[in-house]
């Protein structure tokens, strides 16, 4: 993107010195106005949530908080750290994010390495075998029955094992390895390295950009998922995740007690309707870790998305 723009920069400069046509000026106004609108629409809700989370909970009820807290306090945050279920949820969420990301990186990169080898006999078969899973899935209930038959309900493993191999991630890493010179592998082979050593010592260190992309996808997916908790571990308090706990708390007012989607937790919900500011404080706690990480990985995932889309 940058290269293209700097190439034509001189031309554009010349052009902007000349009088612009009415068309161009009109376009310019549309462009900048819409960019400002997009930015405000995206950021305002987050600032609003942040302001409410930092505002006194009684004062918040009066309404009218926009992007700045009226009566600043950290009480909402100290309050939520006394909720036992949130502490457990935080631990489980961190645990599944760390383990799930590492496991997914290892499995994804290993498979990608074998699929990037043109001389690998089973390459076409494995490739097809994986690609099918991107379009066909058994669905909710067969998946649930399988987990039950494998005795994975009410276990931590249900967060990690089912999603361990993701076709999309494998293809992202493979297309990155495809771009590396094959001579690297050949020379390592001449030095007597076996394929595993080549993968571990040669390819993996070179794959860091692709791995960063996939790590971000995996980590965000793990951190953000709540439905597997709802489906498999919802009743097991020692295994619920932060997102699931937030879901329960947020749904406690947006839905009333007669909500047919989840009557089981009705009594529990009635007893824990939390004030607005506490909800917003939890939202911030759940959101912030990811918001800190993603801008730094931007250049990687932009590339990764493009590679993945081209290949798949």
């Amino acid at each position, binding site marked *: 993107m940058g290269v293209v723009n700097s190439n034509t920069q001189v031309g554009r400069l010349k052009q902007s010195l000349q009088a612009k046509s009415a068309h161009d000026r009109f376009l310019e106004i549309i462009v900048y106005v819409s960019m400002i609108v997009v930015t405000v629409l995206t950021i305002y809700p987050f600032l*609003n949530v942040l302001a409410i989370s930092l505002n006194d909970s009684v004062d918040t009820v009066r309404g009218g908080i926009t992007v700045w807290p009226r009566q600043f306090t950290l009480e909402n945050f100290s309050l939520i750290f006394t909720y036992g279920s949130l502490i457990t949820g935080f631990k489980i969420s961190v645990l599944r994010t760390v383990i799930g990301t590492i496991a997914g990186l290892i499995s994804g990169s290993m*498979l990608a390495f*074998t699929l990037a080898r043109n001389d690998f006999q089973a390459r076409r078969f494995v490739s097809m075998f994986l690609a099918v899973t991107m379009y*066909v899935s058994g669905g*909710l209930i067969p998946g649930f*029955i399988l987990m039950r038959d494998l005795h994975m309900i009410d276990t931590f493993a249900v967060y990690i094992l089912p999603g361990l191999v993701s076709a999309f991630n494998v293809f992202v890493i493979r297309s990155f390895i495809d771009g590396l010179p094959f001579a690297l592998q050949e020379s390592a082979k001449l030095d007597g390295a076996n394929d595993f050593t080549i993968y571990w010592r040669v390819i993996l260190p070179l794959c860091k950009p692709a791995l960063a992309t996939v790590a971000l996808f995996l980590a*965000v997916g793990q951190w953000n998922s709540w439905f597997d908790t709802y489906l498999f571990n919802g009743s097991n308090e020692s295994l619920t995740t932060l997102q699931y706990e937030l879901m329960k708390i947020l749904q406690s007012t947006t839905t009333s007690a007669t909500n047919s989607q989840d009557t089981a937790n009705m009594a529990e919900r009635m007893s824990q309707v939390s004030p607005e500011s506490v909800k917003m404080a939890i939202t911030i706690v759940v959101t912030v870790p990811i918001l800190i990480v993603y801008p730094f990985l931007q250049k990687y995932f932009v590339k990764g*998305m493009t590679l993945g889309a081209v290949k798949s």
Partner: protein
Amino acid sequence: MKTITLGTENAYKKRRKSAWKQLKNQKYLYYMSIPFVLWVFVFQYLPLWGWTMAFQKYKPGIGFFDQKWVGFEHFRTLFRDEHFYQVLRNTLAMSFMGLIAGFIVPVIFALLLNEVRVQSMKRFVQTVSYLPHFVSWVVAAGIVSKMLSTDGGVINDILLGLNIVDQPVQFMAQGHLFWGIVTGADIWKETGWNAIIYLAAISGIGPELYEAARVDGASRLRQMWHITLPGIRPTIIVLLIMSIGHLLGTGFEKQFLLGNHLVIDYSEVLDLYALNYGLAMGRYSFGTAINIFNSVISLMLLFAANGVFKRFTNESIM
């Protein structure tokens, strides 16, 4: 004749030997892929075997061969259920709205962002636009409900302030608004992310095209229309076909999290139907029939879309 046979036999033996040798040579590649192939088989393919449940009167706890087979009975029940048609309507409506919005809005956003000449602003807007993609639907749904709420929601504040309405609108309690809210939430969350690929495609267009157009006196609007848009056409088509394939698989998280009992006539989609009327009630076979219906329609749509586009544009993704 004999020598030829011998010759091929020898060649065959040789080939088999070399294949065996290659297999041995590549043993590490096999070690590194077979475990994951088995993995995929267990977690992705075995559920497909579970589809047999839809043709049985499945009872948990007894073996596969002891189940009672009932043929298409569950499908007949499904197609006779009036509720099913309401759910199907909701699914199709929200999927199509999501599809149209989900590919038109990012294209427009990418085109406009590409016209921003101040690089720092361009980068800032783009980074900001990804932000909602990274938050979970739990958080996004919470934010959307907050913005639309009747006490202190910014949308109602604005509408009241401009005297467009004289009472706060109960957005989350009106069924006929639900599809729009879900689509809007989707646009808010995914536009920036979906624009990444279009922006990458735009940056791949040769600058000489634009220069030639400028020499010919084309305004930027015309350059956008005659160069940028045709330049990303293949990308648009591929992504469109892919999203048609995932049309009914667009999920149910939004509907689950934004819906409530007041709008359930508009919010319930196929997966939620399977969840509420299959899993929650222990009617596994019936629920599986719903899942199968969903998957089969998705695949048909994918092939149909691919076929249509192939005929008109000679481009295919499969």
